[in-house]
């Protein structure tokens, strides 16, 4: 069974600090996607990063396939970054369905 582990489970930052979120996978994957979700809200795709490093604004994701891990770096955090960050891995041999980690709940304080 595919599993995804995320760490830390929760994180509290002061505004403008940086955050590093981690994700590890039980199997090799060619599909890694990071999402953001507010309580009760939809999943917003942040980055699709199956390998290497990818950046979008203040977000940088690094995926190392052979080590079965991915990270999400948030620079200069803002209060509006608060929410839950979900990592998901996919299996192209199984309909590209996603298996999700438990999430990291981020709180950014002023």
């Amino acid at each position, binding site marked *: 069974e595919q599993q995804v582990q995320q760490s830390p489970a929760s994180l509290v930052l002061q505004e403008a600090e940086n955050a590093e979120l981690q994700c590890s996978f039980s199997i090799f994957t*060619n*599909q890694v*996607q990071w*999402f953001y979700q507010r309580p*009760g*809200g*939809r*999943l*917003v*795709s942040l980055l*699709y990063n*199956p390998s290497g490093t990818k950046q979008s604004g203040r977000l940088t994701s690094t995926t190392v396939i052979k080590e079965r891990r991915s990270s999400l770096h948030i620079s200069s955090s803002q209060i509006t970054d608060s929410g839950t960050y*979900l990592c*998901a891995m*996919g299996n*192209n041999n199984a*309909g*590209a*369905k*996603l*298996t*999700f*980690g*438990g*999430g990291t709940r981020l709180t950014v304080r002023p």
Partner: protein
Amino acid sequence: EAAVTQSPRNKVAVTGGKVTLSCNQTNNHNNMYWYRQDTGHGLRLIHYSYGAGSTEKGDIPDGYKASRPSQENFSLILELATPSQTSVYFCASGDAWTGVNYAEQFFGPGTRLTVL
């Protein structure tokens, strides 16, 4: 960005009743998915589809059926709803990675279902 819509957004059903959740996507993706999200369990896959006419079982299919009548539409059907099916349901669409395109998935806004 891909557009995925769901209806209804909120639904209250009675135990034993039939519930149909609908999903529509306008980006011509081949694959569509139904997930549910519960506290303590995260997001889990119920059913998915490779295209019109196809449905596949996901990780937790018991108690659910799915229907894909067209490329754009994918429904989740609870024939006999139970309180344990109270949850938030998300639909998503995407494509399999072919070496050229991305297999990124895009999610709808979710449907909050309460079964009394």
